[in-house]
């Protein structure tokens, strides 16, 4: 197991290094001048000063070495080009929590409601409840989150005035984004939980437990739920990483000052340092959560743990 974790972490470091390098050179080669929007009509000399400040007067390779050195020694992502005086680190520090809060609430809702609905649906297979849940799941999966968000904004907020259309700061502002965010996930967790439960129900150990006179509630809790949760655990990893990435659109739509919104803005503004800094941040989260899931997977499923340690 330890060998496996070390190998995974090693891979992750290589992946991260390649992502940083590739992003750096790709962005440097991208069309458009990063400081064009900032300098505007400034005189030539002023433009040169700003260019030198960001090191844009140096060749790409030299910039890369400098960037890596700063990153590895101090963890510095560099100063944002658009937000003068603020480094990408500051922006991540200030705004990551906003994205994280919405994402974690939504994720918790997704998993609990999804697992519950999936279990109910599978236990009542081919009954009326199952049919209703399945129809809702198919519909929810087919609707993109931004359509949901728009519908919520239009009906709940604009027509019925139950919640603010957009904005940030108070508790009431959470309601709509969290709902729009969670609904697609609820549907897919329900779907996976249903099929995973159905495959578990037929297993021999369930029949054994039943024939031994085990109470139904105990079978569900101790045997079905535990085993059918295994595939759900694998889905959580990418979902944790997706907390930031998945919020790109919703943060923009609801005017939430989270990292996703900053990333989208940085891309449209050509803000080099912000793009690279946020990319590294997202990539680190993503890679780390994949490792955590791999480890979790072994914890949840002893069969895998044994298979891996024997390898």
């Amino acid at each position, binding site marked *: 197991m330890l060998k496996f974790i070390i190998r995974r972490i090693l*891979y*992750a470091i*290589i*992946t991260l290094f*390649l*992502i940083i390098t590739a*992003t750096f050179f*790709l*962005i440097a*080669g*991208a*069309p458009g001048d990063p400081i064009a929007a900032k300098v505007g009509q400034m005189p030539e000399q002023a433009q040169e000063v700003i260019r030198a400040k960001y090191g844009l007067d140096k060749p790409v390779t030299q910039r890369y070495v400098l960037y890596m050195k700063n990153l590895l020694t101090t963890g510095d992502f560099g100063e944002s080009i658009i937000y003068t005086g603020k480094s990408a680190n500051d922006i991540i520090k200030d705004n990551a929590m906003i994205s994280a809060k919405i994402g974690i609430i939504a994720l918790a809702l997704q998993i609990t409601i999804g697992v519950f609905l999936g279990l109910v649906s599978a236990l009542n297979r081919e009954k009326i409840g199952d049919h209703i849940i399945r129809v809702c799941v*198919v*519909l929810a*999966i*087919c*609707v*993109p989150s*931004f*359509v949901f968000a*728009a519908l919520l*904004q*239009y009906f709940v907020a*604009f027509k019925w005035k139950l919640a603010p*259309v957009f904005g940030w700061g108070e508790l009431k502002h959470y309601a709509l984004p969290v709902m729009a965010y969670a609904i697609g996930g609820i549907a897919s967790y329900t779907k996976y939980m249903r099929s995973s439960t159905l495959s578990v129900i037929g297993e021999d150990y369930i029949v054994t437990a039943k024939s031994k006179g085990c109470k139904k509630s105990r079978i569900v809790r101790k045997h079905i739920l535990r085993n059918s949760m295994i595939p759900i655990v694998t889905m959580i990893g990418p979902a944790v*990483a*997706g907390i930031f*990435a*998945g919020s*790109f*659109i919703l943060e*923009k*739509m609801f005017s939430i000052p989270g990292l996703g919104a900053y*990333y*989208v803005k940085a*891309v*449209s503004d050509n803000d080099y340092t912000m*793009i690279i800094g946020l*990319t590294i941040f*997202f*990539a680190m989260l*993503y*890679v780390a959560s*994949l490792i955590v899931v791999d480890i979790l997977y072994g914890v949840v499923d002893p069969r895998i743990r044994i298979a891996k340690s024997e390898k």
Partner: protein
Amino acid sequence: MNSNTGICEDNVILTDDMFERIGTKGLSSEQINKKSLTYWGDVWRRFKKNKLALVGLVLLVVVILTIYLGPLVSGKNYQFMDSTAKDLKPNSEFWFGTDEMGRDIFTRVCVGGRISIIIGLCCTLVMFTIGSLLGAIAGLKGGLIDNLIMRICEFVGNLPYLIIVVILSMVMGRSIFSLVFAMSLTSWVGTTRMVRGQILQIKEQDYVQAAVALGANTKRIIMKHLLPNTLGIIMVTITMSVPGFIFSEAFLSYIGLGVRPPETSWGALASAGQQRLMFYPHELFFPCLMIVATILAFHLIGDGLSDALDPKLRK
């Protein structure tokens, strides 16, 4: 052996004319009336029985016919701006209404839909080709090549998909090609793993071993056994991944990284409509309706296919 030689004990040689066929002549039950059912014939037969899947198929045909024939029927140009007809509600002349520049939304939804669907299909094609080729090679060859391919998969699978897509479409400029490239770059990993797994599994099956023992060459085994048996699961993945790509395209267009105007797509139309949602909800509603209808159709077909292809569900 003993039971066979028993008959010939008295040195009687058995010839054909010593036997007579009785009781079976002219019996209709001996005739094969029905053509034997091929694998795909069987799948189609079971697929047809699934009403929901048929609804999906009809829905998809309707959507495709609409987006290709719609502009001919409406007789409008998707770029034509009518300054006297801005932001109209749906009416008899403009079926889906008009946008803020007086363009006919119905025609725009049709033309945009072509691009959305083409992007979805192209990405799926690239994903399928790379994925199944690499997966097949890895599964068939094994050893070092297999190991190498799986390591590459592990690496690509570690890349955060969305970030890569955003950066690539930023670097390569906004065009359909760069969209397809960026979206299919990381998508083939799942297909590769799946095809490899299938091939490894089928390779060990008794009927393949039997074919090898009977002297079938590699080509025949691939064409007759491996391909038909993996195709089913690949078909399901394909139908399920087209909507995924349409989703991603919509998403990218939505944050302004998709197709560039004057060309349009469902995502771009939805994005434009969203900004005017409060006053002209129809500008968002119709593109979204088409996206949802298409994705729903693919989902229903995919579900029906996977049921029809799964021998365990055969009654």
